[in-house]
């Protein structure tokens, strides 16, 4: 049996980060990946006719600057969106609004007084996101820590916030648990602007803009923007792949051993100490430290024999909410479609269909009852295909559809087509040529994501990113500091603090924790 210092399970970005970082410290690291290649939910797949692209992750708000710096990813040619990412909020009745980069520093298509109010509100948003930014790079207070220091730390953080000004502090305390709808309705009038903000605060989260605490989703997103590398997002075409490749190269250079097509079937645990892993093909590896970057649900309910797990913890893991709620539609088009009476579609732009707050809210209603959204909201990116496949010159539209239930009351078989057509006919309304130029299309539903990417529930964030599962409560209090009750087993996936998209801090924080805790 081969033996390593560290085994990392799952070659998603968090797994790669942990592996690379630990290998850099001189540990021998083995990275096990169930699929054929690295990247996890951001990996490239052959989509159509030999054309390869990330199937799920189309863009990323950004990757943490700490990750870039710590692993020295600069040298690997990361593709960033240098101009900043604009958002076009498409609406059928009115003119579309154009939401400048940096979350609407400039906004076209709204009245001047509205823009003034928006500017104030935006300032507040960013101010408050600062708190999250700070917490994101911390290892959360967990059950194993002596509580005095960490409590004191929280009090100091609170005191610092207060010193920034009374009014600001009061607003933070009031707003932090509010719903997005109330906040934007207090200040704004433009329906599409409200729709856009509603969409951004709830995408990937099972909340509607009227659900209390939905504002946190927005704060979360903004804090990621601010703490991402040079506050940039990844380029739409090739950005995600460049990041994943960089991570892979970094890991490779640091001496990580990779084994692909090797799905871990169970962990070898002896008296609450992790000793190694067993693969589905029967191969075994041993290591003192095992880091799981897969979802906490998969880690504990599939890999750990429940004989080794406290009943209390089993209960909490089972209570996690991890049903995915977003689906991904990829379409190959002959040409870049033209917007009806508007400018050409831009490949450096996010197109958003969330015409109003009510639209986002009512689609969320359907999600609650496991039904198809009536008029689904989505965001869409276009990128020209320049690879050497037969599709060279064509255009890929990658579309995230919000509020897609994991399980459906009706059959998915028929409904899949229905959902696809709903989205396409919406696009058709402002890009009349769209339908005609479709070459290929494919829709990946949450339960399909679950199967293909080995993520319980097919949830982007592994489990819900809501107020009751953040920081010390993510994924559960017992597991919040990346260590687990099983000695030598750590978790580092999106299900841990701070999680979220391609941010990468879960992996980095976990690596730091492991370096601190375990000797070679």
């Amino acid at each position: 049996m081969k033996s390593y210092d560290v085994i990392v399970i799952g070659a998603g970005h968090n797994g790669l980060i942990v592996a690379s970082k630990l290998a850099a410290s001189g540990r021998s690291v083995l990275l096990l990946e169930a699929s054929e290649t690295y990247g996890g939910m951001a990996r490239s797949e052959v989509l159509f006719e030999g054309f390869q692209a990330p199937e799920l992750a189309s863009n990323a708000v950004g990757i943490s600057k700490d990750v870039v710096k710590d692993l020295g990813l600069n040298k690997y040619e990361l593709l960033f969106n240098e101009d900043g990412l604009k958002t076009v909020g498409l609406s059928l009745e009115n003119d579309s609004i154009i939401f400048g980069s940096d979350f609407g520093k400039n906004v076209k298509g709204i009245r001047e007084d509205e823009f003034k109010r928006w500017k104030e509100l935006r300032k507040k948003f960013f101010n408050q996101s600062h708190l999250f930014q700070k917490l994101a790079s911390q290892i959360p207070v967990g059950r194993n820590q002596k509580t005095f220091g960490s409590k004191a730390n929280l009090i100091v953080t609170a005191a610092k916030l207060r010193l920034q000004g009374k009014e600001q502090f009061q607003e933070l305390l009031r707003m932090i648990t509010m719903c997005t709808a109330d906040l934007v309705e207090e200040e704004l009038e433009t329906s599409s602007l409200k729709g856009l903000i509603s969409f951004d605060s709830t995408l990937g989260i099972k909340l509607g803009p009227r659900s209390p605490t939905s504002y946190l989703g927005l704060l979360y997103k903004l804090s990621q923007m601010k703490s991402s590398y040079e506050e940039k997002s990844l380029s739409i075409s090739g950005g995600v792949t460049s990041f994943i490749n960089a991570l892979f190269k970094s890991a490779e250079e640091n001496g990580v051993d990779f084994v692909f097509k090797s799905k871990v079937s169970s962990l070898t645990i002896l008296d609450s100490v992790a000793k190694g892993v067993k693969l589905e093909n029967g191969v075994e590896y041993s290591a003192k430290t095992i880091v799981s970057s897969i979802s906490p649900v998969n880690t504990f309910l599939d890999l750990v024999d429940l004989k080794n797990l406290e009943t209390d913890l089993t209960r909490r893991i089972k209570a996690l909410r991890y049903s995915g709620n977003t689906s991904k539609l990829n379409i190959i088009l002959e040409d870049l479609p033209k917007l009806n009476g508007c400018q050409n579609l831009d490949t450096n732009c996010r197109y958003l269909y969330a015409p109003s707050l009510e639209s986002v809210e009512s689609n969320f209603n359907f999600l609650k009852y496991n039904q198809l959204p009536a008029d689904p909201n989505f965001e869409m990116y276009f990128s020209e295909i320049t690879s050497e496949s037969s599709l060279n010159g064509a255009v890929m539209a990658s579309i995230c559809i919000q509020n897609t239930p994991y399980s459906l009351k009706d059959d998915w078989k028929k409904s899949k087509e229905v959902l696809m057509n709903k989205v396409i006919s919406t696009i058709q309304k402002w890009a009349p040529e769209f339908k005609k130029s479709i070459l290929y299309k494919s829709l990946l539903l949450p339960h399909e994501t679950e199967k293909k990417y080995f993520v319980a529930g097919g949830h982007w964030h592994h489990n819900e990113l809501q107020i009751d599962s953040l920081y010390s409560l993510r994924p559960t209090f017992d597991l919040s500091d990346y260590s687990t009750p099983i000695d030598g087993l750590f978790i580092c996936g999106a299900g841990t603090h701070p999680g979220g998209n391609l941010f990468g801090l879960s992996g980095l924080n976990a690596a730091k924790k492991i370096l601190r805790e375990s000797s070679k």
Partner: protein
Amino acid sequence: MEKNFDVIVIGSGHNGLVNACYLQKAGLNVLVLEKNDWIGGAAVSRELHPGILYSNCSYVCSLFRPEIMRDLELPKHGLQIVAIEGGTVFTRDGDYLASYRNYHAKKRELERFSVKDSESYSRYSRDILKQCRFIQPLLMRTAPDPASFKFRDLSEMLYLLRKVNDLTASELADTVRFWTMSISDFLDEYFENDVIKASLAVSGIIGTALGPMSPGTAYVLLHHYMGEVDGSIGAWGYARGGMGAISKALTSSFRAMGGTLLNNSEVDKVDIRGARVRGVILKNGDEYLAKNIVSNADVKRTFLKLTDPEHLPPNFIKKVNNFKIRGSSGKVNIALDSMPKFPSVSENNPCLKGDIHFTDSIERMERAYDDWKMGTWSRDPFLDMMIPTLTDPTMAPPGKHFMSCFVQYCPPKVGGQNWTKENKDAFGETVIQQIADYSPGFREKILHMEVRTPKELEDEVGLTEGNIFQGELTFDQLLFNRPIPGYAQYRSPIKGLYMCGSSTHPGGGVMGAPGRNAAVEILNDLNLPNSDIRDAYEVL
């Protein structure tokens, strides 16, 4: 009549009366002004059909603080609370899930639906009780201002921190989760049966403009459970003679202490001179003078209607405007010729004496809420129905009954428009139809019916948008945020103008705590002793 008083209380709701009683007791000369002919705000019993008393607003007594009852000697002034025996949820398949006072009967009833859930119920009640114990002592304390550096605020913050510090790390984690979860997610962690979940979710949504799947509703549950800490007996009950009996006892206590109470005296404006109150001017032109005015009205009514905006900082007005105070419930009050039949339940079953529901799944509750979000009343509403005359024969002649149906959800405006008569009738019909589905021959028994939408609640009682809690119970409007950050200590930007309604901490329900807490603050400002005001009973 005398025109000069030490204190004028605007509004004779239970909080206004509690406040007035305490201030009068401290030796001040207090005048209470009530716009209606009757006293009591939303805690009233009115004879709307000959011989039958209606608790036509609030309908059950659960939260009234025992400390206040004792201080103001309400039992001596005639207040009797009769414990409720049970409750039930009718299911669509013709069964019902009853809830009984007897613990074992209750568990056995749960067992009929799920043995596992019946056993999980103990763990559930334990966890709720834990949270109640944590929160209850905070009800009778003025919330500290976390943004203030005053000694008193800092020491109160320290008290809070100490309480938090008393919790073990995992208890603290549980508490934070509990405060932020939705009641639906919370119940999922304990129970598997939908009827059981629906019956327990009720307390998480009553009075709020939230559905059971909205985060934060688990906390609301607490707000309704609070009375049960340490098994204080008789926490839940009917006031004998209807909810007006509470107001009656408070009035009697107030008058016995020498207080003055005027009905039919609607206040038009608070008279403010030089950033200080001088008195009030009534709609009929009368003026009364006092250096201290306490408003029992909600924060919007107080500062947007009763006060001229010129006296208030614009930022404050903006925040008052932003205060969320949404009507989400209506009432249908019915006088019945005889007891309606519910064929699923045998006649001697005490569960009919409590709250009766027809919503047997969380999904139906949430869907009812969806209708409200879209600006209309629920097509399949959630009803909290009670027949207090089964327990209290003083409210109706023998054989006849009064039935109170609290209906959720019901918006203050329908599709953005004011309520029309047709809408109101249709709303009433929705409710009657739901009852009649489970009670054949129900319609024939109706003698009289009063349909109350949030609009009626606003017009009659003065509750803005008809919100029964004078403001949503979401975290952004609790504790030091209630009603306005920086003004959560019953004071206002105007010297001498105070608030004592449910808009203030700790919020709604017939609890009396806001009125009492405001009295403490006023006496502090006047440098008068408040030794007659009992501290909250210790929770051991």
